[in-house]
C-alpha cells in the first residue's frame, strides 16, 4: 500500500442533541459545510487538488440523506470536480469514511480527499433510519435483535461489572474531558459553529457535566429495563441462556450522550502534500472492520483491534494510545479487560460519556483527538476504534511522521 498521510483535521463542538441544544437550529449539511470551509481556509488549500469527500452518517435519511457529502462540497464552494460519497456503517461511519479515503489513496486511485462524519441527533432522530434488521418482523425476530443499551447491560452481566464499576469509569471520563477543556487541549481542532448571521452559536462541548461524582451518578435510574420488559429480555436470554437476569447498570450518566456534531480529516499522498504545501501530521498505518454478535452488538472492539494489529504487523504493546468510543462504560471496560490494555493509555482526553457521541461523526472526531494527544504527549502510535450497530466494529491505526 502507498503511504497515506493525515494533513489536518477539525471538528465542531458537540451540542446537546435536544430541542434546547445550541446546534439544534443548524442543519446537518451546514455543520459539514463550515468544517470544509475552515480546513480549506486555514490550510490555504486549492480544493481542486482533492479527489473525493466521504461523509459517514448513521441516520442518512431526510436532511442527512441524498449524499450529504456532495451537497456539502458544492455548498462549501469547493471545486466542482471534487466527488462526494455517503457512507453508512452505523457508529463507525465516520472512521470508516476516513478508511475509505485512505484506501482510495493507498491504491493509487486518488491522491487526496476528506473523510469524516456528521450527525445531528436533535434533527434526525435516532431510529429514523430503521431498516429491516430492527423493524421487519421476518428479519428482526430471526436475527435476535435487541436494542444496544440492553447489549451494554448484558456485557456488564456476563463480565460481572457492577454499577460502581461503570459509574467510576464515567466519573473518570468526565474528569479527563474537563481537564482537556481546562487546559485548552481541544482548542486547535475545534471550529465554533456559526448561525446564518455569522454569529457563533456554540464553541464548546456543551453536553459535559464536569461536577459529576459517584454520588450524583448513583441517583440515576437504570435506563434499559423497559426494553427488557417489552420482550427483548427474552430475546437476550434465548441467545445468552447463561444469563438468569440482566443486571441493568447503565444509566444516562454512564452511557454516551446524544449530541449534534461533525468531524473531518484531510488525507493524501506525499505528492499532494507537496502540491498543497502542507506537512503531514501522521501516517495511516492500516485498519480493519469486522462483525460480531448482533444481539449484544457491542463486543467487536477487542477482536477488531487484534485484526487491525495483525493487518499492519504490530503488537498491542506497540500502540501508545487507544481511543475507543465510549458507547457505554461496559464496552470500554470489556475492551480493556479482553485486550489487556491499561486505562491510563485509553481515552486519555475523556470520551463520549462526557462529551457526547454524534453517531456517524464520532469516528472522525476521536481519530483527530487521539492525534492531537500523540502530538501533545510526543508519542507515536495510536489506535482508534468503535463498536457499531448490528455487531460491527472498525479500527484504524495511525503513526506520527
Amino acid at each position, binding site marked *: 500500500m502507498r503511504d497515506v498521510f493525515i494533513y489536518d483535521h477539525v471538528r465542531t463542538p458537540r451540542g446537546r442533541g435536544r430541542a434546547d441544544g445550541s446546534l439544534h437550529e443548524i442543519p446537518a449539511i451546514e455543520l459539514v459545510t463550515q468544517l470544509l470551509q475552515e480546513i480549506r481556509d486555514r490550510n490555504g488549500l486549492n480544493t481542486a487538488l482533492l479527489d473525493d469527500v466521504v461523509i459517514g452518517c448513521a441516520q442518512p435519511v431526510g436532511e442527512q440523506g441524498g449524499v450529504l457529502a456532495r451537497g456539502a462540497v458544492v455548498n462549501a464552494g469547493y471545486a466542482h470536480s471534487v466527488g462526494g460519497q455517503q457512507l453508512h456503517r452505523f457508529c463507525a461511519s465516520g472512521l470508516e469514511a476516513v478508511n475509505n479515503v485512505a484506501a482510495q489513496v493507498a491504491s493509487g486511485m486518488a491522491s487526496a480527499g476528506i473523510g469524516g462524519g456528521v450527525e445531528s441527533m436533535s434533527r434526525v432522530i435516532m431510529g429514523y433510519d430503521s431498516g429491516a434488521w430492527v423493524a421487519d418482523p421476518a428479519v428482526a425476530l430471526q436475527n435476535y*435483535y435487541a436494542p444496544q443499551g440492553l447489549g451494554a447491560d448484558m456485557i456488564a452481566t456476563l463480565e460481572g461489572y457492577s454499577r460502581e464499576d461503570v459509574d467510576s469509569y464515567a466519573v473518570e471520563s468526565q474528569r479527563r474531558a474537563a481537564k482537556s477543556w481546562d487546559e485548552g487541549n481541544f482548542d486547535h481542532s475545534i471550529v465554533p459553529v456559526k448561525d446564518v448571521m455569522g454569529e457563533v452559536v456554540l464553541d464548546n462541548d456543551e453536553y459535559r457535566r464536569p461536577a459529576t461524582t459517584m454520588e450524583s451518578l448513583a441517583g440515576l435510574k437504570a435506563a434499559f429495563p423497559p426494553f427488557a420488559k417489552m420482550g427483548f429480555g427474552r430475546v437476550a436470554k434465548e441467545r445468552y441462556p447463561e444469563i438468569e437476569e440482566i443486571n441493568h447498570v447503565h444509566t444516562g450518566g454512564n452511557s454516551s450522550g446524544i449530541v449534534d456534531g461533525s468531524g473531518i480529516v484531510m488525507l493524501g499522498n506525499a505528492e499532494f502534500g507537496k502540491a498543497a504545501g502542507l506537512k503531514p501530521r501522521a501516517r495511516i498505518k492500516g485498519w480493519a472492520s469486522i462483525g460480531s454478535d448482533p444481539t449484544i452488538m457491542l463486543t467487536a472492539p477487542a477482536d477488531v483491534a487484534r485484526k487491525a494489529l495483525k493487518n499492519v504487523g504490530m503488537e498491542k504493546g506497540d500502540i501508545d494510545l487507544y481511543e475507543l468510543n465510549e458507547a457505554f462504560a461496559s464496552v470500554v471496560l470489556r475492551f480493556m479487560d479482553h485486550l489487556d490494555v491499561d486505562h491510563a493509555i485509553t481515552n486519555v482526553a475523556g470520551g463520549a460519556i462526557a462529551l457526547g457521541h454524534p453517531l456517524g461523526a464520532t469516528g472522525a472526531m476521536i481519530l483527530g483527538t487521539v492525534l492531537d494527544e500523540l502530538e501533545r504527549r510526543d508519542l507515536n502510535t495510536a489506535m482508534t476504534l468503535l463498536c457499531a450497530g448490528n455487531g460491527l466494529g472498525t479500527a484504524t491505526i495511525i503513526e506520527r511522521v
Partner: protein
Amino acid sequence: MRHIKLDKGADGVAILTLDNADESMNVVSAEWLEDMNAAIAELRDDESVTGVIIVSGKKAFMAGADLKLMVAGYETMTPKDAFAFSQKATAMHRALETMGKPVACAMNGLALGGGFELALACHHRVLSDDPRAVVGLPEVNRGLLPGSGGTQRLPRLIGRKKGLDLLLSGRSVAPKEALELGLVDEIAPIDQLVDKARQWLATNPPAERIWDVKGYAIPEMRGMIVPEVAMDYSIGVAQVAGKHGYNYPAPAAILSCVFEGLQLPMDKALSVEGKYFAKLLTDPVARNIIRTTFISKQAAEKGARRPEGVPKSEVKKLGVLGAGMMGAGIALVAAKAGIDVVLIDRDTATAAKGKGYSEKVFGKAVERGKMPQDKADSALAHITPTDDFALLDGCDLVVEAVFEDMGIKAETTQKAEAVLPESAVFATNTSTLPISELAKASKRPDQYIGLHFFSPVDRMGLVEVIMGEQTSDETLAKSLDFIAQIRKTPIVVNDAQGFYTSRVFRMFIFEGAAMLEDGVEPARIENAAKAAGFPIGPLALLDEGTIDLPVKILKDAEGKDGNLYTIERGGKVLDRMLELGRGSRKAGAGFYEYAEDGSKHLWEGLGTEFPVSDDQPDQEELKKRFLYSQANETAQCLEEGVLETAQDADLGAILGWGFPLWTGGTLSYIDTIGIAEFAKEASKLAGNYGARFAPSKWLQDRAAAGTPFYPPIKAG
C-alpha cells in the same frame, strides 16, 4: 346451491341466507365456496338486484373452516397447494366486495374466523346486541392466521395497532366493544338486524371499499419510511418473542402479513397473506396444536373413551370427602355445574373452610363481572359443608380427596360406603397411590375408580381417569359422564405406579436436577426449559412444591422390585438440598433465594454445592434432554399399556403439566421429529446421559417399521 338460499325482493334487495345443509353451524367448505361464487355471479349479473343482505339460517352467523381439514394440511399439502386452497376463499371474498353492488351482513350470532372474514368482506356490518354474538379472528390460537383477508381488511378497517392486538391475541369481542372498535358498523336487537341493513342500503351507499378508491393512502403504505411505524414493528417483534418465544411461527407470520401487506395494494396483499398462511398450514406446529387441543380434546369431551352400551348417567348429588385444596376445588366445579355437593371433613368448621374457597372464587368472579350475583348465590347454595357421613345418603358419586395415605383413604372409603347407595361410584383423587391397592378397601371394587384432578381444580381442565384392575366399564362410563357435567377433559389410563401424568412429569423436574448434578449452570437449566416452551423452569417448579414429596416417593420406591418410580440421576441433588434446609419456597429457601420484596434469584451457593463444569452444553442439547426424556417415558407408558391411545398421551401432557403446546404433546413430538430419527437421537442421548433416554426394543421396532403414533392422513 345446497348451503345458500337466495331471495330477491321486489325492492331490489336480495337476501342471501347462509344455511349449511349438513351441519348445525355454517362453516367454510369447498362446497360452500362454490355456492357463494355461484350466488355472487348471479347477484352481480341480475340487473334487478341493487343490494344484498347476508343473513344466517342458524343460531350463529358463521364459524371458520373445518379444523379436520386444517389438520390434514401438514401431511397432504405442499405450500403451493395450501396457497391455492387459501386463495379460493380469498377470491370469493374479493369477488363479493368488488361486484359493484353494496353488500351488508346482518349477523344474528357469533361470527368467528372464516365467518368473520366473510363479514369483513361486506361493505356494511350489523351485529346482534346479544352479548353471545361475539366476533373475532382466533386463528392465532390454532397456530394459523386468518388466510382469507383477515390480516389485511381488519387493520385497514380499524387501524394497524388495534388490528394487530386482535390478530395476535385471537380474542373474541362482544358486540358493544365490536362497535367501539369499528369491527361492526351497527349493533341492534336481533329482530331489527335486517331492517337496519335495509335502511343502510336505502341510502344508496357506494359499493366500493375504501382501499379500492383511487388515491387511498395510509401512512403504513410507506412502510419503514414512517419512523413511528418502524418503531412499532420493532417493539411488536419483542412482544411476540417475549410472549411466545421462538417456537410458534403464527404470531410472527401475522406480524409480517400486516407489515408487508399494508404496503401493498389489496390484491397483492391478499396474495402475500396467502403465502404466509400456506407456510403455517404446512408446518407441523399448527397441525400439532389443532390436533391435540381442538380435535382430540373435543373428541375426549364427547366421549371418545366412553364404553358403548352404557346408558347415559347424571350426577345429581356428589359427595366430596376432604375439604382441603383439592376437595374444595372439586366441590366448586361441581356446584358451578348445578350439582348438589356434600363436602365432608373431620369437623364442620374445616368443611366450611373448604366451601369458603368457592365463596372467594365466585366473589371475585362477580366483582370482575364474569358471573352474575344470582348465579354465584345459587352455586354456593349447592354446597353443604358437614362432618356427618350420613349426609352422603343418595349420592350418585363420591370423590375422596383426603390425605395421600393408604390407611386414611381405606378408613374413609369404608365409612362412606356404609352410607352410600349400592349404585354409587367411588372415586379417589390421588396423584400417585395405586388404584387397585386402594380398591381393596372397597366393598365394590368394580365401582372404584381413580379421578386425578389437577390443582387448582377450577382452572385446570384435565382429569386423569385411572382404571383399577376390577373397575367396570359402567363405572368408567358414569365417571366420564360426571366429568362432562363439570366440563372437564378426561383421559383414561390404566393403573400403574404414578399412572401416566405424574410418572412422566417427574422426568421434567428430575432432568433439571440431573443437569445440576452434571455441572450445568443453573440459569442455563431454567432458560433451556423456558426456551423449549415449558411455562417454568424445573428448579423453580421444585421450589413451588416441596422437595419432600418427590424425595419421599423416591425413597419408598427404592429397593422395591420392578418399581418404575426411580430415577437415574438428580436424586443426590434433592437429598443435599433437603440437608441444607432448602426444600421449597414455602420453607423460605430452595434452589432460589426469596427476597422480602417478593423477587427471587437463583441461590448463589448452587455453584459450590454442584460445581459448574467448564464446558457448558449447547442450549439445544438441554432442550432436547427435557423433551426427549418425557417423550421416551410416554412411549414406555404406551408400550406397557398404562396408556391406550396417543390422544390420551398428548392431551395429558398439554393440559396436565404444561408440556410445550407447539409439540402437540409427548407422542406428537416424536411423530413431528419422525419416529426413526427420534429413536436414533434418543440412543445417542442415552449414551451421553443415561438409560432413561434409551428407546425400548418396542420403540426401536416401531421406528424400524416407520409406524408413527398417529396414522398418516391420506391426501384428498
